[in-house]
């Protein structure tokens, strides 16, 4: 498919990514070239083949449902804004 600027802007919104106009100009042809390589998938008839999400169909390993002492997640050290045991974030609705 031909990727338009509006498609890129839609995907940027879905991905929660903000980039400059000059980055958009660079991304568009790069993504287009990558998408063009995907055409090789159309050369083979895959209609009758089942999709795989994983390499093997191994049953997931289920651990016992018991409470364990977790590690200190170092939130105070790692979170950009940590106040009295909570993450502090900007207002959801905008200024004020």
């Amino acid at each position: 498919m031909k990727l338009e600027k509006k498609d890129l802007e839609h995907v940027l919104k879905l991905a929660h990514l903000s980039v400059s106009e000059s980055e958009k100009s660079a991304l568009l042809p790069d993504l287009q070239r990558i998408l063009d390589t995907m055409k090789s998938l159309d050369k083979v008839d895959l209609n009758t083949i089942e999709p795989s999400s994983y390499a093997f169909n191994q049953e997931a390993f289920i651990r016992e449902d018991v409470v364990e002492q977790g590690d200190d997640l170092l939130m105070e050290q790692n979170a950009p804004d940590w106040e009295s045991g909570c993450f502090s974030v900007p207002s959801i609705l905008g200024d004020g």
Partner: protein
Amino acid sequence: MHPTGNLVVLVCRLFWGMVNMTSLIKKYHNEFKNQTRTVVDLTTAVFSQIEAKEPSVHAYISTFKEDALEKAAQIDAKFVKGEDLPLLAGIPIAIKDNMHIKNKRSTCGSKMLENFVAPFNATVVNHLEKQQAIFTGKVNMDEFAMGSSTENSAFFTTNNPWHPDYVPGGSSGGSAAAVAAGEAIVSLGSDTGGSIRQPAAFCGLVGLKPTYGRVSRYGLVAFASSLDQIGPFTRTVEDAAIVLESLCGQDKHDATSSNQAVPAFSKQLKKDIKGLKIAVPKELFGDVIDYKVKQRVAEALDVLVKQGASYEEVSMPSLNLSIATYYVIAPAEASSNLARFDGVRYTKRIENAANLTDMFTQTRGKYFGDEVKRRILLGTFALSSGYYDAYYLKAQKARTFIKQDFNKVFQKFDVVLSPTTPTMPFKKGEHTDDPVAMYLADLATIPANMTGLPAMSIPCGFVDGLPVGLQLVGKAFAESTLFNVGDCYQSVTDFHTKVPQGVSYEI
């Protein structure tokens, strides 16, 4: 297959005594045990090498000299007391900077995690600590393991120790460069599309991607969860077997870790490959592969045939789909995994965001690098409404198609042999403006990730002073077969004993 094959074997046999050393780990272990050398001495030698080589190699993001020497002294005291210690006790090991060592930074080569301090140990780190290995530091990588040259690190580019103008490969370029330059005896990397095997080939080392599920991924920062595996870089195959033994096993923290029994890999090296059946896929021996690479790999095949193996050319048409399949599936999984970096929990946040959404989007826009952004967008696109069937679902079907091809081949053959990389190591900057050209570097390595099969790169010669790697792919959980073939090959060749200028094989 190649007329020089006989000569290679003959010349190597003449030097049998010199090349027969197949485990550096065992050599150091015996020295520690017999007290002809101390752990402090080896650790000091490795840090001297780090100081000498880092200005030209740039493998390390952080080093732990003080911790390492303190631990070395403690282990020496145990050896003096005559304690029976594991083989990896006192062995200096470098860790890729996407695996957690508690209270040390895990940057993933990204500005986003520049100051992130790991709150717990990765399971592999716990295993190595139990073995009393010594951590030298954390090594450079392409940002979030996305890349094939380590040029996507947000901090600096690592140089190939064989020639500073060339890339070490990637994404585990720091892991490969550290061992090649003698700045660690062993290192750990992670492999999602070839990120252990390709840098191992470019730096002249053994690099192993175990079967998916063999090694727990807990504490490895996720890139593409259905493809990621952790594995070792070593000079010799026997050492790779020794390291893998200590890393495996089911882990309650990783639901995809396997319950398959873990063999004592290093004790199963038979030094015999008589009757081994090798498949050589023509799709990985055609025009897409540089003839210089093909020549070295063909010579290696001759060596294996001399040792009693046989080979046949096979056709695996699905291999032509592997790049396209990978660049849908890996970015799709990455776009989901990297959603957690939103400015709330992980150290970086832009200043003065007007509202929560601005904080998310601008933080991600500012602190992710170009390749990471490309892949997040690609993955988000492939999963988005209206395109899911045309891209993601189709790629998942192609993944099954690749698996079917390998299943067919493994009904008749024991291993699939090919070059590890389609080209020789390339120069820095050669592919940085062309993401598609960079992606082609993973042509031969991606299928093993798609199928979850174990695969290993082994040094198989040089062209103009730069190393070439040979790749072996085995049946699921048949790492022992790969080790046996690789060890046999190294017992009659000496490519693994070659080192770059200013580096000693034995430190």
